[in-house]
């Protein structure tokens, strides 16, 4: 069973994000990059499926800047078998549509039974790529999965929805997206970190996969970036001699001053 994990590296959620001079990108020098948290679940699930099925390989696929090889290496240390990095200067300021096209172009030439991805990346929050890949490759998409089972060429998944969950079934090959709760990603052991250094990461350019000019590809273009207006919190300390008094005072403030409730 060969599994492809779509992985993106994103700034750590605690990182300070600063706008570059060009006003359309961010300063990347001091940013700490991590695996998109949802993709970490995807890597873990892929390894578990391979272990359970007793064969096949887990391929990490990333489209992005060259430094992404460090996060691919982390996934290899977790237990993935090989990495593919699509790295091209033309991908510098790409959009999710380009990413999806690039990934689909690569997957047209890779054998896989299953694709696992995060439902969204916590940097651009687009939720675009998995559905577009499903569309480009014509494979079923099962979203926000908390449990999966594979047998006889089929995958059954429990997906979270508002108010509960739905169990869905589809034929393989398919693409599934992760939801928190699917698993607990492992930490790479020192031995596996050493082993990962010998694993292969293949780097490809857009030309290698038969795609060219990015200008024609960009569909969603950032024209400017700005810092959001700072929230002017009132910071009113709700006074009172007891919790009861504070509760009464709070309700009063909410109704009279804030005009809600």
């Amino acid at each position: 069973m060969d599994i492809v994990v779509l992985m993106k590296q994103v700034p750590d959620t605690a990182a300070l994000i600063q706008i570059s001079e060009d006003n359309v990108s961010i300063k990347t020098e001091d940013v700490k990059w991590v695996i998109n948290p949802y993709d970490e679940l995807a890597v873990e699930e892929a390894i578990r499926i391979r272990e359970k099925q007793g064969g096949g390989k887990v391929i990490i696929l990333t489209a992005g800047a060259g430094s992404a090889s460090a996060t691919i290496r982390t996934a290899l240390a977790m237990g993935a078998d090989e990495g593919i990095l699509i790295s091209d200067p033309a991908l510098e300021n790409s959009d999710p549509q380009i990413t999806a096209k690039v990934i689909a172009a690569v997957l047209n030439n890779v054998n896989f039974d299953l694709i696992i991805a995060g439902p969204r990346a916590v940097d651009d929050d687009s939720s675009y790529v998995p559905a577009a890949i499903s569309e480009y490759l014509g494979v079923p998409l099962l979203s926000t999965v908390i449990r999966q089972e594979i047998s006889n060429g089929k995958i059954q998944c429990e997906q979270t929805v508002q108010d509960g969950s739905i169990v869905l079934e589809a034929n393989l090959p398919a693409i599934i997206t992760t939801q928190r709760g699917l698993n607990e990603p492992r930490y790479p052991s020192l031995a596996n970190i050493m082993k990962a250094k010998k694993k292969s990461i293949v780097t490809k350019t857009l030309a290698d996969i038969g795609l060219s000019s990015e200008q024609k590809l960009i569909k969603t273009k950032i024209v400017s970036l700005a810092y959001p207006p700072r929230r002017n919190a009132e910071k009113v300390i709700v006074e009172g001699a007891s919790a009861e008094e504070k509760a009464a005072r709070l309700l009063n403030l909410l109704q009279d001053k804030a005009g809600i409730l």
Partner: protein
Amino acid sequence: MSNNVMVFAGYTGAGFKKSAFEAVSEGRRLANRLNGVLTAVVIGSGTKETALELARYGADRILTCDHPALEDFDPDRYTAILTDIVKQYPPAILLLGSSYNDKNIAARLAARLDTGAATECLEFALDSDRLVATRPLYGGKLMAQVTLEGTPQIACIRSNVFPIAEDMKAAEQVMIEPNLAEPKTRVVEKKLKNSDKVELTEADVVISGGRGMGSSDFSLLEKLAELLGGAVGASRTAVDEGWRPYPDQVGQTGKVVSPKLYVACGISGAMQHLAGMSSSECIVGINRDPDAPIFNYADYCVVDDLFKVLPALIEEIKGQQ
């Protein structure tokens, strides 16, 4: 080139999602500025009558696809139907709501039509009749202005951001015969709690609990949320501890909410949590620790034991009703 606006109004068996009304209202405003026609599209089972509700929010034309086979959302079926509609009634702009299904369709349609799409939009401007959408990046640490290539320009709105406005039109309803694509997935079982609870991202009031809850007993929060017609959320810690289900998580790795009132109970206020709730209109922090970072972002700071404050607050509200 058409100046028309189309809105895909997300429908569930229980009726329209609130974001459907928000999208239609915003679609009306854009159509007015473009002097275009606003078309609403409703796809589902039992939608014929309900679809007419959208006339109240300014739809000039309501395209309705009503078929029993469309009861369960299926991305391939819905996308195929919407693609046919977009080709028959080509809009300049296509707006959708904020749900996962809406984003799923938006991405597929953009891929099929090779056009630009943006999700989580907070604001729209027009520049020579082209859309300029504002959307957050990096959990709201930055705001991006984006333009979309191609036609239609596809945009999903974020919940609870665009005002719902009534603007009654004598809408014309057109029934659409569905082109039923073969579904690629089958529903095996539905495990739904079947409650009439408000969806977290659509709620006007959100009461969230964090580490300070100490256990999975969220009954005080449930009670308060019920009294105020709101929803219960949770911090990452509360979810990681297994106290609340994952879909309840508010934050950069969970849901983003912008209710009128957000009450953070026993939540310290980590950066990744703030990313999910700092656009709330009014924030109340209840925490025993006076140095909790949440108090830097709260409008009203209650420094006390939440297990004493919440019961008193519930009694106060009950006393008024």
